[in-house]
């Protein structure tokens, strides 16, 4: 029951209403009894059609009654002349239209309409498309109507560009139409893919959409619809999955990917070589899932010389990654990484223009959440390194002016700070990891990038016990410090081969639990 306001009424009025309802109920019950009786007796006739129609006119969600009507229509279709049948189907469409007036969100009524049109031999799709446009004028956000429109379009197949233009029309009418932005996104990538550059959207259209969405957003900065579309456009770049680091030791071989990949991708597209000979083995997800960012290679091979990895990327390119011999038995191969978004030149120019406009708008309304967030995302997308400080400052402000989502902004601060450091860390051959920025981290984003590290220092952060499962990425770690964090339990601490673990300064961690943990991990020196 949605949107029914409770109203205070007098006792008298209450009694009158109740009497009215009991009358209605009597009629309803009688009709339902008769309907089910006739059905049981297989009296699938016009009378039953009429009875069910009457009840549905005021209760369009009684699904069984629509089923009964379909059963009747199927029987009639076998014996009726085509003209008579056509009239019956028209009447059925009229009934659904009537029902949709009472409840425009009735799943049953919409489905009946679809059924009639796909069952009859003479559907008129033009009328249906017109009906959709008409209904969208009453309620431009009714997702049933939009779904029905897509169904009609799938049947009568008008040029896709016509539908794209329809969304333009709807949006120019009212930018606050998320349904239209959504529909537009689907067609944009289909109509205008970037065939040359391999990006999702062709440059000039990408630019055009950015302009359109900006004028929408500036028309009413508090309306959220356009901002989501804009955020998507900003993310519409190539983000190929690649291998970021792999480690081979006599006891364990791991491969970390930039994003989660599923078993089949690892099995079919990742290959390890020793002296140019393919190694045979089995891939296992580090945390036992179908998808994972870190995979373990189980093999009997003993490696003593040159190791190499090849990964077949989505676009067919081969990522070939040689390794460095770190010590007698350890080989590490690291890819060059970048979190920079690869926009085309014209798009970058457009982004810079829009950044400028955003800054102007922000000067006028410094506390507008959407303007500040957009400015921040622009800065990050255009040059994360260059604008890093400003981005963090903005995110800290957002935590205050958009308090509801403070947790989101805090995670972004951690994530973007980690990304900033990662690029520097990956330029060295160190096996140590230590947080090098002032902002305290609360989560462990991109942690698989550090899966090769032996000495991991996460001390003096704001990590709580919910991050413990992510430590499973530290498959090659020897010493780990979690000193001065906010751990409360070790319950979800993963199975690792750590030699030294520092848990000091986690004030809410119980001594008993740590003692038990020590007993279960005898090979590890635990500092507490």
């Amino acid at each position, binding site marked *: 029951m949605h949107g029914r306001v409770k109203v205070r009424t007098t006792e008298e009025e209450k009694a009158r209403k109740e009497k009215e309802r009991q009358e209605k109920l009597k009629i309803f019950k009688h009709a339902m009894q008769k309907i089910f009786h006739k059905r049981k007796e297989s009296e699938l006739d016009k009378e039953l059609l009429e009875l069910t129609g009457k009840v549905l006119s005021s209760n369009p969600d009684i699904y069984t009654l629509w089923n009964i009507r*379909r059963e009747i229509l199927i029987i009639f279709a076998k014996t009726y002349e085509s003209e008579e049948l056509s009239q019956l189907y028209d009447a059925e469409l009229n009934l659904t239209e009537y029902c949709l007036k009472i409840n425009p969100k009735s799943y049953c009524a919409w489905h009946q309409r679809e059924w009639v049109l796909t069952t009859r031999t003479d559907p008129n799709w033009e009328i249906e498309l017109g009906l959709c446009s008409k209904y969208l004028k009453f309620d431009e956000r009714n997702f049933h109507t*939009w779904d029905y429109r897509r169904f009609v379009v799938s049947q009568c197949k008008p040029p896709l560009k016509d539908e794209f233009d329809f969304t333009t029309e709807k949006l120019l009418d009212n930018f606050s139409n998320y349904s239209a932005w959504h529909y537009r996104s689907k067609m944009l990538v289909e109509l205008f893919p970037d065939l040359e550059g391999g990006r999702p959207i062709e440059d000039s259209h990408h630019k055009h959409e950015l302009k359109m969405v900006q004028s929408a957003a500036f028309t009413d900065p508090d309306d959220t619809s356009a901002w989501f579309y804009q955020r998507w456009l900003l993310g519409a770049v190539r983000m190929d999955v690649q291998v970021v680091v792999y480690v081979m030791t006599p006891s364990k071989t791991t491969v970390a990917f930039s994003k989660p990949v599923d078993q089949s991708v690892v099995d079919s597209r990742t290959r390890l070589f020793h002296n140019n000979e393919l190694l045979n083995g089995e891939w296992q997800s580090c945390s036992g899932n179908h998808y994972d960012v870190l995979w373990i290679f189980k093999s009997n091979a003993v490696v003593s010389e040159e190791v190499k990895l090849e990964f077949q990327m989505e676009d067919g390119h081969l990522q070939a990654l040689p390794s460095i011999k770190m010590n007698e038995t350890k080989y590490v191969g690291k890819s060059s990484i970048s979190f920079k978004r690869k926009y085309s030149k014209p798009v970058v120019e457009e982004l810079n223009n829009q950044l400028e406009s955003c800054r102007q708008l922000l000067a006028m309304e410094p506390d507008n959440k959407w303007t500040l967030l957009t400015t921040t995302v622009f800065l990050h997308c255009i040059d994360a390194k260059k604008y890093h400080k400003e981005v963090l400052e903005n995110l800290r402000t957002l935590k205050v002016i958009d308090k509801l989502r403070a947790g989101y902004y805090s995670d972004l601060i951690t994530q973007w700070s980690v990304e900033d450091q990662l690029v520097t860390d990956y330029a060295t051959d160190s096996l140590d990891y230590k947080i090098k920025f002032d902002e305290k981290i609360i989560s462990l984003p991109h942690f698989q990038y550090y899966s090769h590290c032996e000495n991991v220092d996460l001390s003096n952060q704001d990590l709580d016990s919910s991050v413990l499962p992510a430590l499973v990425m530290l498959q090659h770690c020897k010493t780990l410090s979690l000193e001065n964090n906010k751990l409360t339990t070790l319950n979800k601490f993963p199975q690792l081969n750590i030699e030294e673990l520092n848990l000091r300064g986690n004030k809410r961690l119980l001594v008993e639990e740590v003692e038990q943990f020590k007993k279960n991990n005898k090979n590890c020196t635990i500092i507490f």
Partner: protein
Amino acid sequence: MDFTTKDVNLKPDRPTTLLIEKHSDYLAKYGTNKDDYEYCMTEYLRMSGIYWSLTAMELMGESHRMPKEEIISFISTCQNKESGGISASFPHDPHILYTLSAVQVLTMYDRLDAIDVDGVVEFIKSLQQEDGSFFGDKWGETDTRFTFCAVMCLSLLQRLDAINVDKAVQFVLSCMNFDGGFGSKPGSESHAGLIYCCVGTLSICKKLDALKVDDLAWWLCERQLPSGGLNGRPEKLPDLCYSWWVMSSLTMLNRIHWVDNAKLEEFILACQDAETGGFSDRPGDIPDPFHTLFGLAGLSLLGNSDLIKPVNPTYCMPQETITRLKLEPQILKKV
């Protein structure tokens, strides 16, 4: 242009504490008068109504107030001998929505013996299509809700192997949108309720990593409005049931801290009817069992009340039931 405010104001005299006894009374009384107008007019969804009420009662530790034996024999009468599917009520037609509700209820009661389980499995199996999607019944409506019903139902029966799970997952993923969300079928707009169904399907099938997690979770946390309540799509009014659809999804994605939990709790409590008990969609509206369940389940996810038992975010059933069945739906690791 639409300049109406798309939010509600919480009144100073709103309920601010959990009125648990009232809710228990409300549900215990609901449906005792078989001639009640509202009750009769909702016969076509009775089975789900029982699931909402029983689950709410279970979460409050009050399920002993429900007529257990009556419910179990009612469910038995609703199973269709021919197809194996279960209807909302006798003599309505079987449908996957009510088949799931029935299985959920019997699972909580640990009384699956009351129905022909093989029949249910056959029914669900018969509804899977070539593209991996599911019909709701033989009449051919397709919806991601039905995929979730199929997968959840079979997992409760420990019979997931009866369908093509990979194809079901592929179908769900084909419904993913630019914002990372999901709608009812490929091409449909994102909607928090359907996002719950799709994320829930992936959780049961352990494929949550296939999501665009950060995009989706950001969209979900943007559902919170200044009143603290959540809406289901951009520029829509808040509604209590989204406290469940959004928060359960965020729990599975391990991003529940991206919304203001305290403000949401305030909104949920404000949706209680202090007179009759029960929760409504928005403060001041008429309560119903549907919103009563999702209000309580939402509070359970927020975890601040000892009066409500832990709920499982994937199944919307008491965690103790899911634990008893040894089911382990996936929850994303926090990173």
